[in-house]
């Protein structure tokens, strides 16, 4: 096995910052956290003016780790401040811990191993945006992280890091750990807010954005777990330190979750911009030596890559430049034994199941895409199916109410882009027989989609 070495200047290949405490004895306890410098950044932060913290995070270049990569400091600065007008309303911090994007598995280990880093981040962020209530919305299936977070919140209250007059600063904060109930769409920030308000988790029309009308129609910051867990380190190290890792526009360390057909799947925290080639070396290479076929850079909603893309830098610009997105750095690796049409069908079943049904292109489109793919994989595809699917995707992308619809098209369009021949071969193997039922289905699909669009554009 070739050993990756740190060649040349720049940081080491792996830079544990968020993961550095994970191997500590009882790492989830306050005692362990404090032994490893925990809650020191909070003291520095509370001694500063909140706006200084916003500037610090802006300077650091930290970008959201929940998928979209929005600059975090800028998001915080959108919260209206002041004693009159919109600034006078209560402000809220909501942590998006709904981790459900297929392939993504970084927030759950973070909350299990090091819940206090998230809580310290929440306190600093709440102080910066002047929020006195913070909710951590954790997907309900993440039971053990919920336990650990609740225990950590209780410890933080007991130690005076939460509650009233935190460390004598005059700042008050309550944190609630809120369990979701199983719905991927609740990861979308406005659906999450509706869900947190006790409603069906369906996305809201934007604008207004959460920064002006979020939770309870008040100014709200929604940030991902990994984003906020990065904040204490930024306070402790400074923005220049943070920028020693990664690139100008995508600075800092990032947890890459490598899964699938590799020898050693796992969580690898590296400076942003690491390549799959490097990650594969670290993860011991492809399992059983079977070659790589396709992979996702950041979950199933990010268009797939192939072996051509081994050297694409996995940061926001690099992934986008190569026609995909960085997403959640959920690197799912598939070898040559996996059929692309099958994988695309499985992902499409997921989007169909999770479509919240609010808008027609996504609700109907995912339904028909699933029908076509299932039929194809089960031996009844036609050559025109490929164009039909591309057409449906075209009608979903950019025309859905939220990004779930866009994401649903990613596996299909990228799968066909790189593996069109495999779809054609699959169809060609299938018997040429009249399939009246299927033709009727297709016609209905086209009718529904065109009706939905004329409806949507009106």
């Amino acid at each position: 096995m070739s050993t990756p070495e740190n060649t040349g200047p720049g940081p080491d290949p792996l830079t544990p910052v968020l993961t550095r405490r994970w191997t500590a004895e009882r790492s989830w306890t306050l005692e362990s956290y404090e032994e490893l410098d925990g809650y020191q950044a909070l003291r520095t932060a509370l001694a500063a003016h909140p706006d200084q913290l916003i500037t610090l995070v802006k300077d650091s270049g930290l970008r959201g780790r929940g998928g979209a990569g929005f600059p975090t400091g800028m998001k915080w600065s959108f919260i209206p401040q002041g004693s009159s007008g919109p600034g006078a309303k209560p402000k809220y911090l909501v942590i998006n811990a709904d981790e459900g994007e297929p392939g993504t598995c970084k927030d759950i280990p973070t909350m299990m191993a090091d819940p206090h880093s998230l809580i310290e981040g929440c306190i600093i962020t709440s102080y910066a945006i002047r929020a006195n209530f913070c909710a951590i919305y954790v997907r309900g299936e993440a039971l053990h992280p919920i336990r650990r977070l609740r225990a950590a919140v209780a410890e933080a209250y007991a130690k005076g890091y939460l509650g009233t007059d935190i460390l004598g600063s005059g700042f008050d904060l309550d944190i609630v750990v809120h369990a979701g109930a199983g719905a991927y769409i609740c990861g979308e920030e406005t659906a999450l807010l509706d869900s947190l308000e006790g409603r069906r988790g369906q996305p809201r029309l934007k604008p207004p954005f959460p920064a002006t009308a979020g939770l309870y129609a008040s100014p709200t910051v929604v940030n991902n777990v990994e984003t906020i867990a990065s904040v204490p380190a930024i306070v402790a190290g400074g923005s220049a330190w943070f920028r020693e890792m990664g690139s100008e526009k995508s600075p800092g360390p990032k947890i890459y979750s490598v899964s699938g057909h590799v020898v050693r799947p796992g969580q690898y925290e590296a400076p942003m911009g690491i390549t799959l080639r490097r990650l594969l070396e670290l993860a011991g290479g492809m399992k059983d030596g079977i070659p790589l076929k396709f992979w996702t850079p950041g979950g199933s909603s990010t268009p797939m890559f192939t072996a051509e893309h081994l050297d694409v830098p996995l940061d926001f610009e690099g992934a986008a430049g190569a026609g995909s997105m960085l997403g959640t750095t959920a690197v799912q690796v598939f070898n040559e034994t996996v059929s692309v049409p099958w994988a695309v069908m499985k992902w499409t079943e997921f989007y169909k199941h999770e479509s919240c049904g609010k808008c027609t292109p996504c609700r109907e489109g995912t339904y028909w895409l699933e029908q076509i793919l299932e039929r194809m994989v089960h031996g009844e595809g036609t050559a025109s199916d490929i164009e039909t699917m591309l057409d449906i995707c075209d009608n979903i992308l950019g025309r859905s109410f939220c990004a779930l619809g866009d994401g649903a098209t990613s596996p299909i369009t990228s799968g066909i882009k790189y593996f069109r021949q495999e779809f054609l071969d699959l169809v060609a193997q299938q018997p040429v027989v009249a399939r009246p039922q299927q033709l009727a289905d297709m016609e209905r699909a086209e009718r529904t989609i065109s009706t939905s669009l004329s409806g949507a554009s009106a």
Partner: protein
Amino acid sequence: MTLPEGNPETNSAVAAAPAERQWSAQPHPSPVSPTFDEITRRRAKEIIARYPVARSALLPLLHLVQSVEGFVSQDGIRFCAETLELTTAEVSAVATFYTMYKRTPCGEHLVSVCTNTLCAALGGDAIYERLKAKLGIGHEETVGEPGTTGSLTLEHAECLAACDLAPVIQVNYEYYDNQSVASAEALVDALRRGEKPPPTRGAPLTDLRTVELELAGFTDDPVAAAAAVAGPSAAVETLRGVQLAAERGWVAPAMPAEHPALPPLPEK
């Protein structure tokens, strides 16, 4: 036929649902939802007190209801409606939206097999098919008398955020990682016999109702709950990156010895 203007959500609660409105005035314990005892009612109040706005308590309340009945029954819906002064239609609309709220009585344990693409490719589909055939049940169906020892509800689940440990099963939302058809069969056999094999990550196995109570934020057994927090979490996979870095001596750039001065206040 003439339809009323607007819809029940936008119209005033009184006009929309006169029948439902009466429930909030019921004496406690309510004759409408007698299943829920005094402790549950007190817990419901505690949940509401956690939030700035009462309705935010609805999801936890539905978990609470599930902990009492093993599923969300019509009584459960009424209980939530009554507690939050909502209509039953409003509560039903929420309860049916989320997959974790079950509409039929569940087994002692809920067995969720991840069949999303990555787990499926590594064996999750085969595991689910085998368990279906073995137990003779399908998605969200139960083998055994619901609630009795050894009864199981089976479901296929979407990505459980443990892809580095694929294929993954959860029992009552505790993780059983790196499964195979054989290990999954052994797991359900043990559960059927009334045993509680320990999860790879999570607390010692209890049952679905206990876990739903935990999700709502309560415990009937504080000692067990405290121990539960310490249940294992760090799988080999989870720690691979940190351990490899330690072996090779790789570290993040050193932080300054003192926290650096914060940037000056921006000019207004």
